[in-house]
């Protein structure tokens, strides 16, 4: 019977292929940006302002996706912007996950007063309007990558804590946890060895979602000029610059927007796909 089940091959569906493919491309692009980018992303050339992408009449050779109003190469800026987006997504996502999961696990498994304390704290925390809260945090800490990451972690850990707490409570009510208690194991050991592996699939899904959210938040903050210095290319600042010249040069706005859209979509689809792929019941 065990043989029959393991004989069922699990295909990697189009969902995993597409989302994984886009993210792999993006990671490669970001890592090798200095090699791949045709131009210096900061180099301005006022004579070459608002050149259209290559398939439109009047395109300038060498500038594949056109230039912005200051004559900077859009493709090169996209590639360098991906570095910022992915870095923030990864680091902020992982840190949020660690903080939220730890608190959620403790609240959900130990119940009692730790749960009371953590849950009330989450309720209070969630009552702050997140965008204003993050802008306030950045205003206090100053702009820069570290502040953005801290702001995302500080605001979004509640998302993890809530879901993981509920999941830990469900697992904690299972008989296998009672059995482990009866055999005389310590509570912390049960939490880490029995409960944690069972909430891992949920964690992975949340983590990928969170990475997408972090990318969006970074874009929003750079859209309002609260991210890193305005010269450095980020997708958010490109969108904000493109907004001004949307009637003359739509490509400056559209390309970073499309990148952002596919990246966030890919993160959430990757999570869903991985969840199906690793589900122990289907395995």
């Amino acid at each position, binding site marked *: *019977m*065990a043989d029959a*089940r*393991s004989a069922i091959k699990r295909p990697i569906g189009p969902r995993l292929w597409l989302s994984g493919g886009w993210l792999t491309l993006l990671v490669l692009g970001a890592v090798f940006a200095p090699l791949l980018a045709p131009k210096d992303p900061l180099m301005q050339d006022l004579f070459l302002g608002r050149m259209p992408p290559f398939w439109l009449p009047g395109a300038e050779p060498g500038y594949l996706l056109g230039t912005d109003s200051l004559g900077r190469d859009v493709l090169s800026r996209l590639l360098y912007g991906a570095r910022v987006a992915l870095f923030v997504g990864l680091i902020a996502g992982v840190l949020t996950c660690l903080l939220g999961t730890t608190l959620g696990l403790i609240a959900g498994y130990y*119940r*009692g007063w730790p749960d009371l304390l953590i849950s009330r704290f989450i309720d209070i925390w969630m009552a702050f309007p997140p965008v204003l809260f993050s802008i306030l945090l950045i205003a206090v800490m100053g702009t820069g990558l570290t502040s953005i990451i801290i702001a995302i972690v500080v605001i979004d850990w509640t998302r993890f804590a809530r879901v993981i707490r509920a999941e830990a409570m469900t697992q904690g009510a*299972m*008989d*296998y946890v*009672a*059995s*482990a*208690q*009866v*055999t*005389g*194991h*310590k509570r912390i*050991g049960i939490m880490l060895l*029995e409960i944690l*592996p*069972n909430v*891992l699939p949920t964690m992975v899904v949340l983590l990928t979602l969170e990475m997408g959210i972090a990318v969006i938040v970074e874009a929003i903050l750079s859209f309002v000029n609260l991210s890193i210095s305005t010269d450095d290319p980020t997708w958010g600042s490109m969108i904000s610059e493109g907004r001004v010249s949307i009637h003359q040069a739509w490509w400056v706005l559209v390309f970073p927007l499309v990148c952002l859209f596919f990246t966030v979509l890919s993160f959430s689809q990757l999570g869903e796909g991985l969840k199906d792929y690793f589900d*122990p*019941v289907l*395995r």
Partner: protein
Amino acid sequence: MSFLEITSLSARVGPVPILRDVSLNVAAGEVRALVGESGAGKSMIGKAILGTLPGAIHITGGEIRLDGQDLLALRPAERRRVIGQTAALIPQDPLTALNPVRRIGPQITRRLVDILGWSKRDAEARALELLAEVHIPDPKRVMQSYPHELSGGMRQRVLIASAFAAEPKLIIADEPTTALDVTVQKQILRLIKEMQQRHNTALLFVTHDLGVVAKICQKLTVLFGGMVLEEASVEAFFAAPQHAYSRALLAATPKYTDPDQSLTPVPQSILDDLQAQLDFAERTTT
């Protein structure tokens, strides 16, 4: 002195009594059944002994002595250690009683290694031996399997093996056959009895099935509404139950010999009497 001695144990959820003045003894090597309908508190007694009562339930009085030690007087860590060394559980639902993401082998050996300090190799040899003892055909492969790769009956066998692993002196079986289908139930019952006799373990068997009690138990305790109604040896009980409720319960058991006979419920008058008795006890104790 009995191995397990419960003396006037009471427990409540908020103001609602769950157990009322329950006294119960299980001698070493004895098989005692705890019988009652849903909500009679039979599972709660098992949970109270093992210290796995849900957080909302508080023990308000009484004593639980396991091998002479008063469990309720011990500190939680100490208590877990005592229970871990002397008692074990065969749970009701084999589907949720094994951790779905860990292999069977470590789930059996874990207690031996972590709590009793066996070496990993000894523990694994012992686990293989136990799996063979519970008639699992290919113990080596089962050790490497995940729970979802086994059927319900196989999982219950694994859990039985696991319960006997550390040679406990008392095993609490909480309706161990309820979640299984009828053909497997019989094999599992026979297996529990066989293992109990071979290891000479005391067994507290929680069930609502009097047919099962007749097959494997020596003594029984009938519970209603968290109160002990009757205690008897199995022969005496099936020959002549003393309490009116016990008689009605026995009469309510469907008979194979007469399949067309309609089911006899416990008469309402008996239930009303019992309820009045519980209400009276409540008024006099609070």
